């Protein structure tokens, strides 16, 4: 069974349709890169997977739990699904350590000592162990984003969603974040990323999904699809982002 099942999902903002019958399955351990023009609905799709955005039709299931069911405990589901945002969204009033340990302490009721150990461990994984007691404002954009990834990892999720996590960074800072993404992928994490990093998608994506006007226009094995797109829309898109 797939870890994520997206079945015929439709969503609109008022009268504007953003998703028009999207279906997608993601198996455990897969790294799926969602690409497409801005406004194609890719970020919205991602945000629907952890219930941040309600959907109007269709069904989304994560690890057997229906996301768009009023009876579903979203709080529980979100402990399994981490999300990292474009703008990092760290808590500015909390230290790096408190940013990371807040949810483990409050939601999972872990003792502070244990939570701090986990913070140390996840910070080591993103290469920022020395920033344990720093505040977000003292860090560069790239470092903040790595802390945001560490914060998600600390909840030990089964699935991680990445919403254009390098788009708000200066070019020279994207490398350090991509490196962290690679190591997370190599550890076998199931990942769904909305990204403009075609190089990353090609090397680490098991699959690429191209969205166009609210639909999945083309999808397939990452390297193959990116090397030889089948549709003119994807060809145009790729030539626009690569040149």
């Amino acid at each position, binding site marked *: 069974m797939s870890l994520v099942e997206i079945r015929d999902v439709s969503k609109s903002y008022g009268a504007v349709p953003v998703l028009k019958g999207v279906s997608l399955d993601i198996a455990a351990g897969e790294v799926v890169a969602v690409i497409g023009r801005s406004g194609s609905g890719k970020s919205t799709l991602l945000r629907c997977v952890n219930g941040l955005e309600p959907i109007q039709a269709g069904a989304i299931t994560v690890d057997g739990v229906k996301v768009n069911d009023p009876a579903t405990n979203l709080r529980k589901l979100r402990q399994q699904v981490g999300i990292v945002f474009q703008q990092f969204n760290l*808590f500015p009033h909390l230290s790096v350590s408190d940013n990371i340990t807040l949810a483990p302490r409050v939601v999972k009721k872990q003792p502070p000592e244990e939570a701090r150990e986990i913070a140390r461990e996840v910070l080591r994984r993103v290469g920022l162990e020395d920033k344990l007691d720093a505040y977000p404002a003292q860090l560069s954009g790239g470092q903040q984003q790595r802390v945001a990834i560490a914060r998600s990892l600390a909840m030990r999720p089964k699935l991680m969603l990445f919403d254009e996590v390098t788009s708000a960074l200066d070019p020279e800072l994207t490398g350090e974040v991509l490196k962290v993404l690679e190591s997370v992928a190599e550890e076998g994490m199931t990942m769904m990323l909305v990204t403009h990093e075609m190089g990353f998608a090609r090397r680490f994506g098991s699959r690429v999904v191209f969205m166009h006007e609210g639909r999945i226009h083309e999808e397939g094995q990452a390297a193959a699809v990116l090397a030889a797109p089948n549709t003119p829309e994807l060809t145009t898109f790729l030539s626009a982002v690569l040149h």
Partner: protein
Amino acid sequence: MIREFGLVDVMYLVAAARWTLALTATAFIGASVLGLAIAIMRIMAVAPLRWLAACYIHVVQGTPLLVWLFLIFFGLPLIGISVNPWLAAAVAFSVYGAAFLGEIWRGALTSIARTQWEAGASLGLSLTEQLRHVIIPQSVRIAIPPTVGFLVQLIKNTSLAAVIGLVELTREGQLTAAGTYQPFAVYITVACIYFAMCFPLTQWSRSLERKLDVAR
């Protein structure tokens, strides 16, 4: 018998000022509890709660505080609830303060970006936990200067309690003026005591505003 306005009277006035402070403190605590509830109701997704809180604010802000004092002090006994001046004043000022603090704090809460709520929610925090750990700590910084500013208003407004016979600073001033026939000297003294209580707070509020502004 007419007596001179002397040092003893000044001491009495200062002593009466502690009732002004006590009333302010009580009213501030009452207003804070009620005001926080109002502020949170105002930002909830549940429409009836929002509507109820908005109604409260409109009604209270649209009516004079003095009328509330009279309503509670003279009105409640008519329906069989007896209230002493102290209780009536504490309740009236709490009701009044909650409407203003509620609005100030709602503004502070809504000034926190929606993405902060989202970040909390996507980590599995419940709505209450998002408020308690993410939103309120950040909005406190924004709320402190206007809250201190409101406290100054509250101190001055407690003088209204004199009309229902609560012997705080203003009422003590009235009594002293009646006994000494020196209203000018008495009320100047009263004004000075109010000023001594309010001015430091105003300055503190200003300096907080500057400090928090720099930190942003």
